[in-house]
C-alpha cells in the first residue's frame, strides 16, 4: 500500500510470524514436512501449486469434518425435495399431470436428485470456506514476493510462530537441515489495519451514482416542461391503427368503421324468425294452450338474452308425459313443485341458470298435447329442407359422433356414457331418453330439432357444435332410427328411400 511501511519494518523489526522454507519439488517438501512433523511441531502448513498426494499425512492434518456437512446437507436436500413435491403436487394443490397419481414418486426422483446434489455441493463449498476461515483479506506470508511462486513452480513449508514449541533459531536450523532452497522468516504485516479512506469514498460515490436515475425520474414527475414528451418507443405510442369513430384516409368514404359487405350476414345476425333455424314457425299458431303472443315474446326475449348471455335453457320445457324416467331424478322432482306454479307463464319467464325447470307435476298431466311448461310453438311438422340419402348420411355421422355416446348407436338410451354411469351407480345420472319412446316418435321434427339446439336436462345444447343443416340431418337420422326399430312390414316397400339409406347399420345395436 504505502511505500514507507516496509522501510519502517526494517528499522523496527515487528513480531515474527513464523518460518517459511522453499523447495523445488514435492518430494523434498514431503520429506521436510515429515521431519518437521516428527520434531513435534503441529502448527505447520504447506503451499503447493497442485494437490500433493500424502501431504495430509506428512503434515499430520487431522481428518476434516467436511464430509459430515455434505452428508447432512445432502439428506436435507433429499427430504426437502420430496416434501416440497409431495406437498405441492399431492397435498396443497392436487392436480393430475399426464394421468399419473398425485404423488408419483418416480417423477419426483429427478428433482430430488438435483436438490440433494445442490444442497450437498453448496454446503460443501461454504463449509469448506468457513472451516478454512475464508475469505480472508490478507495473510503475512504474502509479504514475501518469493511466495508468489507457490501458485507456479515452488513448494513451501511453513511453521507458525504460535506453535507450542516454537523457537525461531531451532526452527530455522531444522528447516535448513531439510535441504530447503531458502529459509526465511515471515514478519507480521504491521501495515495499518484500518480500511483506507479512499475505499469508503469510492463506495459512497457508487451509492450516489445509483441514486441518479431515481432522482431524475422523481424530478420529471414533479416538474413541468415546455418540451414535448420523450418517446422511447415512438411507433408504439403512435400507431397507424385507428380507433373507433375516427376518420381515415385509407378508405374512400373516410370512415374507420366499415359497413357490412352487401349480401353478407354477420355472425349471429341471421334472421331470428327463420323457421329453419328455430324449428318452429314464430308467426304460426301454436297448438293447444298458449298463444302466438307468448311465442313472440319468447323469441323477443331470446333475441335479447342471446346478445348478453350464453345459450340458455329453453324456457320451462317439461315433457308432456310424466312417465319418463325423468321422474326418477330427485333433482327434477325437487324443482317440479316450484316450477309447476308458474308453469302457465313459464314461456315469458327468463330461464334461470339452475337446472331446467321441469314441470312434472301430476296435477298438470291432463293439460292436453302441449303440457304445462312445455314450449308451446308451432313446431315444424315437415323438414324445411330436402331429405335425401346424403343428408341422412350426414345425420348418421353426426349422431354417432355426438349422440350415440349417451343415446346408444340405435337410440335406446344405452350409450357407453350411460352404461358406465349406471355401473358406477352415479345417483345424479339421468338415463338418456330412448328415442323409440312413443312420445318422441310422436314429436314433430321441429320439436326434436329444438331439443338438439337447446339441449334438455343433462343433455347439452348442440347449437354450437352442429350447424342448422347438420341438426336437421340428425333429426332425419333420428327418424330413420325410429322407423327402423318400429317398422311394420308394409313400411319397407312404401318408404324404400329412407329405409335403405342406413337400414343395415341402424338395426345392429
Amino acid at each position, binding site marked *: 500500500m504505502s511505500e514507507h511501511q516496509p522501510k519502517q519494518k526494517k528499522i523496527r523489526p515487528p513480531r515474527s510470524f513464523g518460518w517459511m522454507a522453499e523447495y523445488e519439488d514435492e518430494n523434498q517438501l514431503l520429506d521436510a514436512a515429515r521431519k518437521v512433523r516428527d520434531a513435534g511441531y503441529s502448527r505447520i502448513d504447506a503451499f503447493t501449486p497442485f494437490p500433493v*498426494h*500424502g501431504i*495430509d*499425512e506428512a503434515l499430520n492434518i487431522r*481428518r476434516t469434518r467436511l464430509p459430515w456437512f455434505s452428508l447432512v446437507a445432502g439428506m436435507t436436500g433429499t427430504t426437502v425435495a420430496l416434501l416440497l413435491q409431495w406437498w405441492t403436487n399431492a397435498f396443497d394443490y392436487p392436480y393430475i399431470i*399426464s*394421468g399419473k397419481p398425485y404423488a408419483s414418486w*418416480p417423477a419426483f*426422483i*429427478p428433482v430430488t436428485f438435483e436438490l440433494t446434489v445442490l444442497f450437498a455441493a453448496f454446503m460443501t463449498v461454504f463449509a469448506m470456506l468457513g472451516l478454512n476461515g475464508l475469505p480472508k483479506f490478507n495473510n503475512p506470508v504474502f509479504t514475501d514476493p518469493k511466495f508468489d511462486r507457490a501458485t507456479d513452480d515452488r513448494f513451501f513449508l511453513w511453521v507458525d510462530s504460535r506453535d507450542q514449541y516454537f523457537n525461531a533459531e531451532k526452527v530455522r536450523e531444522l528447516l535448513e537441515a531439510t535441504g530447503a532452497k531458502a529459509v526465511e522468516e515471515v514478519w507480521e504485516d504491521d501495515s495499518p489495519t484500518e480500511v483506507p479512506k479512499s475505499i469508503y469514498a469510492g463506495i459512497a460515490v457508487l451509492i450516489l451514482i445509483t441514486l441518479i436515475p431515481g432522482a431524475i425520474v422523481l424530478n420529471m414527475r414533479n416538474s413541468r416542461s415546455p418540451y414535448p414528451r420523450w418517446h422511447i418507443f415512438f411507433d408504439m405510442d403512435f400507431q397507424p391503427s385507428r380507433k373507433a369513430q375516427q376518420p381515415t384516409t385509407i378508405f374512400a368514404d373516410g370512415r374507420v368503421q366499415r359497413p357490412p359487405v352487401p349480401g353478407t350476414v354477420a355472425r349471429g345476425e341471421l334472421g331470428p324468425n327463420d323457421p329453419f333455424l328455430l324449428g318452429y314457425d314464430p308467426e304460426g299458431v301454436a297448438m293447444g294452450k298458449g298463444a302466438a303472443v307468448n311465442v313472440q315474446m319468447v323469441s323477443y326475449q331470446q333475441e335479447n338474452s342471446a346478445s348478453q348471455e350464453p345459450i340458455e335453457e329453453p324456457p320451462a320445457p317439461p315433457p308432456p308425459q310424466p312417465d319418463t324416467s325423468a321422474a326418477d331424478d330427485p333433482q327434477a322432482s325437487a324443482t317440479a313443485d316450484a316450477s309447476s306454479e308458474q308453469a302457465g307463464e313459464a314461456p315469458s319467464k327468463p330461464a334461470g341458470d339452475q337446472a331446467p325447470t321441469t314441470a312434472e307435476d301430476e296435477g298438470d298431466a291432463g293439460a292436453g298435447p302441449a303440457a304445462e311448461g312445455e314450449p308451446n310453438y308451432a313446431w315444424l311438422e315437415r323438414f324445411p329442407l330436402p331429405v335425401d340419402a346424403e343428408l341422412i348420411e350426414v345425420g348418421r355421422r353426426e349422431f354417432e359422433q355426438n349422440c350415440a355416446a349417451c343415446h346408444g348407436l340405435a337410440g335406446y338410451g344405452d350409450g357407453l356414457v350411460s352404461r358406465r354411469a349406471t355401473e358406477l351407480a352415479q345417483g345424479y345420472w339421468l338415463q338418456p331418453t330412448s328415442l323409440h319412446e312413443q312420445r318422441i316418435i310422436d314429436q314433430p321434427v321441429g320439436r326434436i330439432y329444438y331439443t338438439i339446439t337447446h339441449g334438455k336436462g343433462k343433455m347439452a345444447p348442440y347449437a354450437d357444435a352442429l350447424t342448422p343443416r347438420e341438426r336437421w340431418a340428425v333429426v332425419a337420422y333420428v327418424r330413420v332410427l325410429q322407423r327402423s326399430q318400429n317398422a311394420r312390414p308394409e313400411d319397407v316397400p312404401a318408404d324404400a328411400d329412407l329405409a335403405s339409406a342406413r337400414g343395415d347399420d341402424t338395426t345392429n345395436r
Partner: protein
Amino acid sequence: MATNSSSEDLTLPGGWRGKAPMLLAVGLICVLLSAGMCYFVGGEENRSVGFSAFLHSYLANFIFCLSICLGGLFFVMIQHVARAAWSATIRRVAELLAYMIPWWLLLFLPILAMVWWTDSPALYPWNAGSGNVSAIVEKKLDYLNPFWFTIRVFVYFAVWVLCARYFFGMSRKQDETGDASITLKCQKWAGPGIIFTALATNFGAFDIMMSTDPEWFSTIYGVYLFAASMLSFFAMMIVSCYALQRAGRLQRQVNTEHFHDLAKFQFGFIVFWAYIAFSQFLLYWYGNIPEETQWYQDRMNHGWQYVGLVLIAGHFAIPFLGTMARKVRRSRPLMAFWGVFILVMHWVDMMFVLLPTDEIHFSGLLLIGHLVGWIGMVSVFLGLLIYRTGDTPLVAQRDPWIPDALAYQVGP
C-alpha cells in the same frame, strides 16, 4: 527396475491351480442340472416355456460372466489412456480377465448354433423368421436374421478379442524385454481401442441381449450394460485382490490405497448404474407408450416386481449407503464383503434384465434352476480363468509405472 524381488512368488497359488478341472466339471454338471430344472418351469402343459426359460437363464448367466471380462477390458484401456500409474500393479488381473473373452465366444456357440440351424423363437423371437413374427418385428427382420446376427456377433467378439489379446500380449512382452516403448504403444492404441470396444459392447448388448424382446428398444441399453460391467468388474477386482492376498500373493503390490480407489470406483458405478437404470425407467414410465412400456410390464408383474424392488434396495440403496464411509472403503475384509454383495446383485440384475418375458414368470423353481446355472457358469468361469492364467505372473514385471504404483500413497 528390479522392484519385484525374485524371491516373491507372483503366480497363482498351486492349490488353486489344482482345482481347475474340478471347477470345470462342477460347472458342467450344474449347467446341465439347471437345464433340467428349468425344463419343468412351464409345467406339464407348456414345455416350450421351460426350454425358453433355460435359454434365457443361460444367456443371463453367460452375460454375467462376459460383462465382468468386458469391464476388465475397459479398465485396462482406460488406465492406459489416462496414463495411470497407481494401477500398474493391479492391471494384470484385469488383463487376465479380459483375456478370457475368447472362451466366451466358445460358450456362445450353442446359442449361435440354435439361431443358425433352427428357427426356434425360444430365445430370440425374431428367429422364427418372416411370417411367424409380429408386424413390428417383421420390419426388423432385415437386421435381425440369423445370417447378419452371426456376422455381427463375430465382429463384436473380434473387436473384444483383438483388444484383449493386444494389451495382454504387450504387457507380457514387456515382462520379458522391459521395453518402456511398449507402454507408449499401449497408450497410443488404448484410445481407438476404447472407441471400438464401446461400439462393440453397445451393439453387442442390442443384439445379444435386447433382441430377446425384439419389439422393444431402448437406446440406453448398451450404456446400462456398460455400467453394470464396470461395476461388477470392480467388485470382482476387489474380491480377487482380497483372495489373492489371503493366499499370500500381491502383499506388497496392492496396498490400502489401491483398495480404497477400487472401492471409490465401485461406489461411483453403483450410482452410475442407478442413474442409467432409473433414467431408462423414468422416461418409459412417464411416456407411457405401450410399445415402450411392454418390457417393464413383463417385469412389473408375475413376481418379477419383487426382483425389481430387490434391485432398487440391493443394487443401489444398500451398497450406496454401505460403501459411503471412508473407513469401510479402506477396510479390505469389508470391501471384499461388498464386492461379493455387488456380484450377487449383478446376477440378480442380469436375471431381471434377461429372464422375464410374457411367458416366463417368476417362480421358486425358476430361481433355483437359474441359481444352479449361475453356480455352474461361475465355476466354469473360475476354472477357465485359472487355466488361462496358468503361471502368468499376477503383476506386470517390468512396467515403468511399477515403482510409482508400489509407492502409491494418498493419505493417512
